[in-house]
């Protein structure tokens, strides 16, 4: 069984010790990091510290000098780092400014990874359309989810903020997306999530997609009330939800 001491990077060890308090999560994170190389752990530490210039430099080094596979860098360096960030955010050890800083570091790394993955022709896990609902201009949570989803291998179409039901529907049809992700940060715009789902019913495509919702004021009860398929509490959970929904889609298609 992997131990904390198997992790070479001191920053990562300290982060896990101080901030990952749930036993099952800690075991999972320790196991993940114990398998990764020191350079990947350094990248992850850079992500956790929000050090975008460092992550940029290390990612280039990993690709160009060490010839490490782009997918490995993404999974073992960038996403591994964001996993700890996500937990710290969930547990209120850090707040949105810090998360934005980490996301900026992630973007710096992904700027080198993305072109390689796009050129490689790897089949995406699924197609997701993401947007903040009509009347809502906030996109922090949505952007984090998009980054995580892309990092995990989904093809994501970002509709931005203030997205009308028609725009969601057009995007689903244009991109043949199977998952719709909606975000709202205001209590006053939450009803627009229900309106969007209703528009999907009107357009006779509700059965063709899975809808996941999230955002600070959104609750599981509200998601159930509006007949969404899933509700997510944070960006890291968003990836797991999307994977679960894709797997439901596949088994429904097989019938």
């Amino acid at each position, binding site marked *: 069984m992997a131990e904390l001491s198997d992790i070479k990077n001191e920053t990562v060890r300290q982060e896990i010790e101080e901030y990952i308090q749930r036993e099952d999560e800690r075991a999972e994170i320790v196991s993940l990091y114990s398998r990764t190389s020191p350079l990947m752990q350094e990248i992850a530490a850079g992500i956790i510290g929000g050090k975008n210039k460092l992550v940029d430099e290390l990612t280039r080094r990993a690709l160009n000098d060490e010839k490490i596979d782009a997918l490995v860098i993404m999974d073992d360096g960038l996403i591994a780092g964001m996993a700890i960030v996500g937990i710290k955010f969930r547990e209120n050890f850090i707040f949105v400014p810090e998360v934005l800083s980490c996301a900026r570091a992630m973007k710096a790394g992904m700027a080198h990874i993305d072109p390689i993955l796009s050129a490689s022709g790897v089949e995406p896990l699924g197609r997701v359309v993401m947007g903040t609902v009509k009347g809502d201009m906030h996109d922090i949570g949505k952007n984090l989810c998009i980054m995580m989803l892309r990092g995990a291998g989904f093809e994501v179409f970002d509709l931005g903020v203030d997205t009308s039901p028609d725009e969601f529907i057009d995007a689903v049809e244009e991109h043949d997306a199977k998952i719709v992700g909606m975000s709202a940060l205001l209590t006053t715009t939450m009803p627009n999530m229900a309106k969007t789902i*209703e528009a999907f*019913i009107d357009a*006779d*495509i*509700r*059965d063709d997609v899975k809808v996941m919702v999230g955002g600070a004021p959104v609750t599981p*009860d509200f998601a*159930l*009330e509006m*007949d969404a*398929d899933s509700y997510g509490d944070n960006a890291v959970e968003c990836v797991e939800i999307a994977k679960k929904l894709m797997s439901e889609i596949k088994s429904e298609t097989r*019938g």
Partner: protein
Amino acid sequence: MTQQTLELGRRIELYSRDPNCHDISVALYRRKVGQSQYVLVHTYSLVDGGKQRVNEIANALMTRTGLELVNDGEGWLRFPCDGFHQRALTRTFLDVCKLVLDDGVEAEPLKRIDKKAGCHLIATDLGQGVYRFDAEESSEAGQKRAEAMTRGFVKLCEMEPIAGHKNQAAFSCGVSHDNLIGSLMFRAQNLRAVMREEAMNASRGILSSPSQQE
């Protein structure tokens, strides 16, 4: 100071902006009278044509749901079964509000094409509020879709599933409601009412508070 807002009971649905009539807001109110539940289509707008539009919506709602006028001259409606099918009613109300109603509407048939089944799905009234849903052509896809439609009606019309018959459901009032079934076949086809028993029971427990079960 005289209030202009009225005591109309409890608002159960709102169509917040009607583009067919100067963006007026049209609401559906509900109140209890004796043992019966009455509903009213209402707008606070005094714009030209607003009252006429409300009448058109009310008439269309009667055609599509089977609601009848209560003879009080104030436009209140009730189900002849004396039961109350709120979910089905509010759903139909919203659908009707979206229509241009200059020429009124007709009741929807108990038959509707289903692209996934590749044929029509048909609702048959078995009496005592029980309906059976079948595909016109027998196939596995058709059967699945008929069952999915049944589950959709269970959710949309708060019908009771019939044990042992995945394609049958019943209104708890024990009375036929062809109008409601016809109006909502379109919705039932598209509603992802996957019958997860815990979710349905849990959602009933959470979503309806004691005060909603008058």
